[in-house]
């Protein structure tokens, strides 16, 4: 218990401060519009009635998110490593990467709907694309800046390509790659909202969008809180994995 408070006490305290500030601005002083910013107590009362709907949405959202994110991690790390290692290839493709990655992904929604056979596939594509550019960029940078000593030591040990990739290149580049993966995860959540705006029949962002259309801002607030809680939980798991992978770095 003591350890728990030591680890998370400050985090919980900040959360309580935000909550108190919200209660003061809404219930106590009524500074914020009660229509857009409902009382937190009213929102909590809605949980029993909508919890199953929220979890159905969670399942649907996670399917899109996990599929797109895992595909983005695999494809971006594979392509990024290749580009990072081959200077000739990097020189030729960098202008195109810069050009395409500058296009805001939400603007590609009509193209995604047109190109993919289902709305679900189009949604996965958009989330994938948002995560892909971030991980690709950080992977290229990370592989390019690997300490030369590691590569030279690997060379003197005559390590074959695949072994060198998994035992030297990727571990050496992993600190920077994981920073990209972390940013990409947050971005994927943002893109989920865009992706669920069309064609979806359930989902966390769909829940918010749907009740927003009916001006049910108490349920919108419930959707926000639920999504935030899920994101915090996923980021917590991600940090645990990151900590395990980077156990050898000084800051861990």
């Amino acid at each position: 218990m003591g350890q728990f408070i030591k680890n998370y006490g400050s985090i919980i305290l900040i959360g309580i401060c935000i909550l108190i500030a919200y209660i003061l601005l809404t219930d106590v002083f009524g500074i914020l519009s009660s229509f857009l910013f409902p009382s937190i107590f009213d929102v909590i009362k809605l949980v029993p009635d909508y919890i199953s709907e929220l979890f159905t949405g969670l399942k649907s959202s996670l399917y899109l998110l996990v599929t797109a994110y895992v595909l983005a991690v695999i494809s971006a790390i594979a392509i990024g490593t290749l580009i990072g290692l081959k200077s000739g290839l990097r020189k030729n493709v960098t202008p195109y990467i810069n050009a395409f990655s500058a296009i805001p992904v939400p603007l590609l929604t009509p193209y995604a709907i047109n190109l993919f056979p289902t709305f679900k596939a189009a949604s996965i594509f958009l989330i994938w694309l948002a995560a892909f550019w971030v991980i690709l960029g950080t992977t290229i940078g990370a592989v390019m800046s690997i300490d030369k000593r590691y590569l030279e030591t690997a060379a003197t040990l005559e390590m074959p390509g695949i072994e060198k990739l998994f035992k030297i290149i990727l571990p050496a580049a992993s600190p920077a790659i994981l920073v990209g993966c972390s940013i990409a995860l947050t971005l994927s959540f943002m893109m989920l909202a865009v992706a669920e705006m069309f064609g979806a029949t359930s989902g966390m962002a769909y829940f918010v969008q749907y009740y927003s259309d009916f001006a049910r801002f108490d349920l919108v607030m419930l959707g926000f809180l639920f999504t935030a809680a899920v994101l915090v939980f996923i980021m917590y798991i991600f940090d645990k994995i990151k900590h395990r992978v980077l156990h050898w770095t000084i800051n861990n």
Partner: protein
Amino acid sequence: MLEVSMNNLQFAYDKEPVLGGLDYQAKAGKFVCFLGQSGCGKSTLLRLVAGLEKSNSEQLLVGGKPVTGPSLDRPMVFQDYGLFPWMTAGENICLALKQKYKDWDKHKRREVALEWAKNLGLDEDLFDKLPMNLSGGQRQRFAVARAFALDAPLLLMDEPFGALDAVTKALLQDTVLDLWQKEKENRKTIFFVTHSVDEALLLATDIVVLGQAPSKIIYTHSFTDETKPKRETLYTDPEVLNLRNLLTKIINDEIVEKARRMKEGKAHANGGISKAKKSLFFLRKRAI
């Protein structure tokens, strides 16, 4: 146990010459120390022998064959440890053994790696620690253990003890020398780069002094088993003292010569600038 021949060995980084034609034959089983001031190309020479830089195939032969790239027969110990920080110190040795002895199983690799760690004076409990949890001396011992464990005929060491404190350095010098001497007939050829005259005197069977870049060999000295200095007599034996003075003088003369050339170069450049200023003044005067 490999011979190394350099025949007018030249090398340049982006047209900037580093090695200006080295001629040297290192006999098999010798402990050759390359001495010289910083930037004279000692490390570059070692990198060429390691195959980390490309050389002209005729100019550098190891065991009678041209160097075409890095090889397990020519492991290198770097000044800054060169251990992979994401693996434990023991795993670093095991990884090297895995590349060399493909048919060995995991247990055999660990057993041999442990033996080499112990040969370098490392306790078993350090074996499973990450490099970041080891001292500089311990890390370098593991790096040397990895190189020795490969049992290569030619070992390359690039200022391996340069970053260590005096006591750790002395202990490691003695350990490396012991390991090398123990091998008797099958002694490895060791190429050791250092800028310390004392270290070269203590370790080498052959000392090679390189001049300033583009460097050439400006002095060589070979010891016999009888004349090779020992730590106990390093600061008392008159012959060793004379040799140390000579080596120090040769290196210092090179430094003085380099400083003189730089000064001359600067003066020449400044002369050029004054001339240009005068011309500008003349042009302005005419314009007025």
